């Protein structure tokens, strides 16, 4: 047998397919990976340390920068944590605005995941289509919050801005449009033989592995675990909407791809219902004290972000700043399984597997 020399290849930190500054040190034999070591931390901003000197409202903009593709859910999780601790009941209209914003964010986030994933696999056009449709969402969220990515929209007790006139109608109009586009997505990519060849049976892990490695979100549901915090531990007003938890049993990259695309459909369902039930008027902020002080104690809440469950732990000593703030960042947890998945795969599959995990480095590094 021929013995070939192993080569150490640094994939990243500047590599087109690592979706940010992520470095993967792989040992390769030819193109076959024998060992993979992820190196993270390039984007670590010490959010948790900074938060110890900030008031709760001031922390919200920092959360925007964690998972910058779905900042609304990040906004929500910290507000939700503080509200849970203080026992604040959010006004209904604010809840609706939050849910609509979060679900729009989820659609946008999955669109980016879809587009960049196909781009990773070498096709350039779907990426642009996804970004075109995402742009519509971004514009809507921009109208709502005044920012395109870092929304800083939610506050403890409600939301910062009320929906501008006709905004809900524009969301309503978007839903059928997006449904139509999704059909096009499937026609363009899902049935493509080359695409299927790249993702089917690639990066497979079992249900047990997924749970053991603390995976969440589409990464977990692609193995058949029917678990969605929106459904199973309802927060906000998600219990009012009728939607399905999308699962697949295969646990491969294709399953994750399908889960994400179908989750867009489910999000559209939620959006549709939320827009219909949207209260014509009402408060957008609960009556909260000027200076928010969480009661002494600790709380951990988790909600369903597009990438999995995002959690927020607050330990408070009754002051206006948290004593300790910790985010459970889904991408950070989801990435742990990567070294295990990569062994024995080739470089092309590395890209396919990493893309299917769908990480955002801002979130991985906190």
């Amino acid at each position, binding site marked *: 047998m021929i013995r070939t020399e192993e080569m150490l290849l640094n994939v990243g930190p500047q590599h087109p397919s690592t979706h940010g500054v992520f470095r993967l040190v792989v040992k390769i034999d030819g193109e076959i990976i024998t060992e993979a070591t992820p190196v*993270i*931390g390039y984007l*670590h901003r*010490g959010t*948790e*340390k900074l938060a110890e000197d900030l008031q709760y409202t001031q922390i919200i903009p920092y959360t925007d920068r964690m998972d910058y593709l779905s900042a609304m859910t990040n906004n929500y999780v910290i507000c939700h944590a503080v509200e*849970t*601790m*203080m*026992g*604040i*009941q*959010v*006004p*209904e*209209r604010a809840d609706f605005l939050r849910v609509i914003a979060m679900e729009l964010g989820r659609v946008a986030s999955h669109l980016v995941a879809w587009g960049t994933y196909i781009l990773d696999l070498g096709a350039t056009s779907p990426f642009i289509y996804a970004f075109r449709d995402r742009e519509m969402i971004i514009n809507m969220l921009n109208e709502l919050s005044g920012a395109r990515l870092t929304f800083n929209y939610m506050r403890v*007790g409600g939301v910062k801005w009320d929906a501008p*006139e*006709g905004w809900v109608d524009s969301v309503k109009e978007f839903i059928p449009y997006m449904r139509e586009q999704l059909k096009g997505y499937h026609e363009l990519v899902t049935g493509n033989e080359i695409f299927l060849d790249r993702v089917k049976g690639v990066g497979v892990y079992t249900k047990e*592995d997924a*749970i*053991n*490695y*603390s*995976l*969440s979100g589409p990464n977990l549901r692609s193995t058949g675990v029917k*678990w969605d915090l929106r459904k*199973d531990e309802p927060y906000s007003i998600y*219990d*009012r909407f009728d939607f399905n938890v999308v699962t697949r049993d295969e646990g491969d990259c294709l399953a994750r791809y399908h889960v994400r695309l179908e989750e867009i459909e489910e999000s559209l369902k939620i959006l549709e219902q939320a827009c*219909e*039930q949207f*209260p*014509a*008027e*009402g*408060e957008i902020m*609960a*009556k909260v004290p000027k200076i928010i002080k969480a009661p002494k*104690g*600790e*709380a*951990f*809440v*988790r909600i369903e972000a597009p990438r999995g*469950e995002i*959690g927020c*732990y607050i*330990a408070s000593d009754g002051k206006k700043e948290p*004593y*300790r703030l*910790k985010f*459970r960042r889904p991408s*950070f*947890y989801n*990435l*742990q*399984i990567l070294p295990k998945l990569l062994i024995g795969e080739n470089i092309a599959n590395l890209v396919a597997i990493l893309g299917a995990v769908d990480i955002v480095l801002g979130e991985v*590094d*906190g």
Partner: protein
Amino acid sequence: MSGEKDLNQLKREAVEKAKAEALAKRQAKAAGEVSGAPMQEDIPSEQALSQDAKPAESAEPAQPTQPVETPAEAENGADLAKKKAAAAAKAKAAALAKKKREGIEDEAPAEPAQPAETPAVEASDDGDDLAKKKAAAVAKAKAAAAAKRKAMELAGNTAPAEETPTPVASETSDDGDDLAKKKAAAVAKAKAAAAAKRKAMELAGDAAPAEEMETAGVTDDAKAKAAAAAKAKAAAAAKAKAAAAAKAKATGTGDADTAAMGDDEKAKAKAAAVAKAKAAAAAKAKAAGAAKGGDVSPADTADKPSPNQPFLDKYRKVIEENLGPDVLEDSYINKLSKDVPTLVAKKDTYFKVAQFLKFNELLGFDYLSELHGTDFVTHMEVYVHLFSYKNRQSVALKVKIDRDEPTIESLQPIWAGANWPECEAYDLLGIKFTGHPNLHRILLGEDWVGHPLRKDYEPYDVEV
């Protein structure tokens, strides 16, 4: 949108009207009626009116279409609500009903307006009820159902207007959660009520009964609010609405009293007491500005036993049965954290407890949702949030460790997902996890000095 503005405008007008009216009433009262007696006097007239209204409502010659259509629409709405049909349809029905009611008010017929005011009681009661239920943090849908039931009962009590209130009440509480809608309805009703009252006053030639005084008192409150509201441009509509709603409650209560009194003394007294208490509570809450939108602080939940208490007891029992009585330092329900059962393990039993939590088939916590450390200055703490996909239950496991020598067993052999979080805790807090396969400074890099999340951390390069 212009329609909505019109509505707001109408509402504000109604408030103005109500204010003027209240003023007139007070003046009339000052003119020298004794408070006790007119109350008795007032009742018959009101009652006569309401009895008059009952037949008149179904086939009112002067307003043939509108009064008839109003309940019909409302009934429609109720039906839809029952069938859980599209919310949009409901909203439309409500809006239509509202408009109809405004029409009534505009044309000021004493007869059809009179029955309409009773529902106002139901509606405001509903509101109260709902607010209370919300305050008690009971599921909203349940609250709605309860409110509906209550409304029906009340409708039975307040006899003269049994026909309208039921559909109206059920319509307004359709899915039970639409407070805003309810409020809007209440506003419309309040207007109708105001109109009715004006008519009643004219007809009876009567001034200021005892309830009126009370009403006026509350109205003052509302007025003050409305005045303040008028100043604030942006929130004007909402506040005016809220004020009108408050007034609606108060007025409605008064009317309910009078209307019911003639019918059944006992029921009346009861209803009046309840309604008064509610109105007072509502007014107070409104004045405190807390009842708006139902954001009442659920302070009273603290007394109730947590729904998760049985789970905690179960975990404790299973652990103590299998691992001995003193493996847990403490265990409690963390009320701040969605009632999660929290177990505090001792340092030397931490790993054992964790292992047990995962592998015991009664517990089966197979998923590590979160692991992190905290520096509490007196000690370090590792917080682990576990979840069982089998039992769909969460548990928090905590362990206190020595701050100067923060060492604890790694959970990585039990849950592979604990790998990176432990590295993170090591990196940021300096907690050493023994048995971890690759404990390294995952975020900051090996050359970083210090552990930033420790409370005594000093930045290495000071000028930043």
